[in-house]
């Protein structure tokens, strides 16, 4: 269930998004296959992210990328892309659309998150257009830094627990 959480100087909005998790060498062939389908070149630096209106593309580790669809696509289109990516035997593309997302914005977002994570959110340590994989409320999460807001993702099975923790952190 989608919810909005409000607190002083902060807003959290739950969002539905689709995602494809890509594994591969990250070489020219890999980049070409991706670029052909989504008109974006995968970022080459670890934990870097790039985005346009439609996609957020983040390099999560040396051989892993997350392609998040900022605008919803028909499920058939996701399957088409998966098929296109997986047509190369050296790429593994998995449908990760069953992921829960929260957009966190507002001037108090760092203070709020400091109740839930040890991660250093200062801009000098977590610059804009980078991402992090860290523990938030004791579960594995990805955090994408857009500057004015963060996009946070976690496994959907944790959704209820995570929303309870968000509300609890707001209340306390």
């Amino acid at each position, binding site marked *: 269930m989608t919810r909005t959480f409000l607190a002083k100087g902060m807003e959290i909005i739950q969002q539905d998004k689709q995602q494809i998790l890509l*594994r591969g060498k990250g070489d020219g062939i890999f980049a070409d296959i991706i670029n052909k389908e989504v008109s974006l070149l995968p970022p080459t630096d670890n934990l870097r992210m790039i985005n346009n209106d439609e996609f957020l593309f983040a390099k999560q580790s040396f051989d892993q990328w997350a392609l998040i669809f900022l605008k919803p696509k028909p499920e058939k289109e996701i399957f088409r892309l998966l098929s296109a990516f997986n047509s190369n035997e050296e790429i593994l593309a*998995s449908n990760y659309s069953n992921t829960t997302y929260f957009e966190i914005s507002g001037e108090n977002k760092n203070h709020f998150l400091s109740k839930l994570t040890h991660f250093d959110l200062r801009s000098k340590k977590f610059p804009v257009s980078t991402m992090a994989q860290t523990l938030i409320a004791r579960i594995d999460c990805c955090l994408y830094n857009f500057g004015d807001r963060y996009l946070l993702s976690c496994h959907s*099975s944790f959704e*209820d*627990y995570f929303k*309870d*923790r968000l509300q*609890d952190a707001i209340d306390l």
Partner: protein
Amino acid sequence: MIENKIYFKFDGKTFEGNEGDTIAAALLRNNVKLVGRSFKYHRPRGIYTCGIEEPNALVQIINEHNEPNVRATVKKIYEGMVVKSQNRWPSLKRDLGSINNLLSPIFSAGFYYKTFMGPKSFWKNVYEPLIRRTAGLGKPPKEFKSKSIHLQHNVDIVIVGGGLTGLLAAKKLAGTKYDVLLIERENSFGGILKSSKKIKLINDQDPNDWIEKTERLIHNSSNIKVLRNTLVNTYNFKDHLIALEDKSVGKPQDNKKPELVLHKIRTKQTILANGHIERFISFRNNDLPGVMLAASFEKYIYRYGVVPDESPVIFTNNSSTFSLIKSLIDLGHKPKAYVDIRDPKKIEKEVVELLAKNNIPFYAKSEIEGCDGKNEIKSVTIRFKKNETAKIKTSMLCVSGGFNPDIHLFTQSKGLLKWDENLITFKPDKIFQNTITLGSVSGNFSYQNIMKEINEKLSFLEGINDLDIKLDIEGPVNFHIKELWETKNAKKSLWSKSFIDLQNDVTTKDLKQAVTEGFNRIEHLKRFTTNSMGTDQGKISSINALGIVSKILKKNISDVGTTTYRPPYAPLNFSAIAGRSTYEFYDPVRKTPIHPWHIKHNAVFEDVGQWKRPWYYKKYTNETMHEAVQRESKQVREAAGILDGSTLGKIEIKGKDALAFINLIYTNSFTKMKPMTARYALMLGEDGMVKDDGIVCKINDQHFITTTTTGGAANVLAHMEEYAQTEWPDMNVYVNSITEQFATFNISGPKAKTIMERVFSNIDFNNKKFPFMTFNNFDYLNSKVRILRASFTGEQGYEIYISPKNALTLWERIFYYSRGINLVPYGTETMHLLRAEKGYIIVGQETDGTVTPIDLNLDWMIGKNKKDFIGKRSLIRSDIISSERKQLVGLIPLDKSYGIEEGQHIIEEKNLDTPIKKPIKMLGHVTSSYFSPTLNHCVAMALIKGGNRKIGSQLYVSTSDLNVIPVEVVKPNFIDPKNERLVS
């Protein structure tokens, strides 16, 4: 200034205090000096200090969930607070436990170790309850729900202490590029500036004005964050500090808000400006209420406006008490006597002149021999020549035995100390982490040099300027200390004691006895006597103990060394440590997409890892678990059942070398396996022991999907990732966890196929088209669904994998289309029963990390012709192939009315002695046992030594009431051994 009056209760009596008073300040304001009883001897105890170092004044706060051992010198009062003294009965003044004091001559160091040796049966039933009842501090709190939270910080610099030094350091860092966190344990800044009149003016301003201006500067600096009422408790590696903030200072707890905040701080640089602690001097009856440290006495005057006594006797070995004398005189009072151990020539002339000018009796080269009184001081005895003494009536004695830098945090950081002969104390020497000590914690007791020290030690920081400061100091600049740890006891009675550790009731005599008994290492001596092992960690006395021991051992103190100061600096509430990881947030919770349906249908949940899995479903309110499981399993065998298996781990494996990879990861051979078929597979550790199992689905040689156990999913993925990255980096293979991306349902039972045909009407489920252990993908609900023909019950079965977004819809459709078929939802317990009837293993139940596939009779799953796989080499070791290893067998009780308990031993003995007197040969243990409603008797599986050879024989299973049940050893397959149902 009009103070707000506050009323609170102490031991049932109502007292009036001022807003901002600590319990101790308010009690002293009401001339109450007796506040507690000591730990062991139940001696009357009073208020010794004015802060966190307090060893005596520990009280219980009744209206805060009975919170025990609260320092009265720290806890602020509020309206309606109810405080009770501890460790006394029936009352504080008349405590029956004080009989311990009469018996104290026999309660010396090591008394417990030597006395309560035997008989053995007394340890638990007599000695422990007796000792616990007569000794100890407060009573444990009642259960309550914590609202403490944790807050994380990442900064460049932490300043611990907001006294003069901390404020100067913060002022220097204001407006710089550094993120600074300034932490002060009190609710106001200033430290010594607010606790005494030692510094008259700062830059020609009143110290309070200077503090206010500096605070404003800090407040306006965007780079400095401030925490008040926050005590840094722990200094971990690497520059990781833990500090506790009390959010409910001076107000009742609000259960809707966090009362405590545990700050976890990571920093690049730690500035310790946490000051010093005054120490006491040991003399006869130095524990009587009315004895107080001199600086604490002065702090009560300036912090709280309380004069604990108008004419105390002052006893010292240094000149720091000048400001106390001056303060009393300024207030129109004066000390009854001034006793100084030093030669008059070594005492600063300012002190001597002040005493002379105000006609204060001055005893130079003298000492306090002891003090007397019942529940508080009535008189002190001064020894002013070798054997001459004078007795003075007084109700208060202020003692100053010198100062110790507050080195606890520094030593927690593993910094090294050195002995300073002039200051007669240990001070920081070599740092281990990025630590800077400033001010008195570094041994710099000279205020005049503080700014120079700060400028020098912070000069390496970029973009900061040197500061200058002018301090107008009243009284002697130096305090010329003379070593004195203990005065000579005139031995007036057996019950007069000279204490070294007030909280643990350790006397100086105990130290001597410990050394005599051979405990001449300071760490051994500490444990034998329990010196410095109280909750105060001997803050005012530990160096004194070293001084006394060094004299006994005739060594230098620096050679005796120090004991270890361990975190936390002061006791922490367990609720603060736990934070929000309690009750509903004790552990993260994972739910499947079908969870709301399970709740609606009265599922009772089982925790499997972090997952909530339906254990069984209650058909009616009073249905027991046994009844439900019997009903569910019978219905599966007779019609069909559905299990939510979404929690099963699922891993997608792809790459040019995926086939080679999977051949190495699992024992089975996958080379000849056809695409779109599946295989039950075993995964071993390098030791050849079963690690996990699951079904491997082959899409093609480059693409596989495997399942894992629910609990093993994360480990299996990590295991695969580790081997792919570190052992076989040349392989082109990638693995993704897709556990969350598919909901999984297992439908099984004789009617399973009928249900599938109804739900997926466009799919042909004919055995020839869709044989056992094959799978295919289909379009369904505008999405994809993967159906695998497999079973974990021994019945005809199908596994459906679908996107979680469509899962609940499909689940409900399955029930809709099963009308008239009697489809039952079943939980994990029924699943366990059904698979046990069929003899299928569960990793973690039939295995325990010491079981091989051969032990499980699963050697048919080992690809004999495979060149290699993880664990292969271990499987040919002699002890692994031994026929005497424990092997998996089935058990059936000879008397079918008996049940077999899981975990019980398998033995050959018909009878057991009660109690068991001789060792009994244990052949193995029961791994699983269930009552089968289909067979109408119990079926069990067991691991038994040489089990395969014992099939057909009779053995015995022990019971929890020391009986035995005769059982027949059978093959572990109780239903449909020919698999006719499975492939039907």
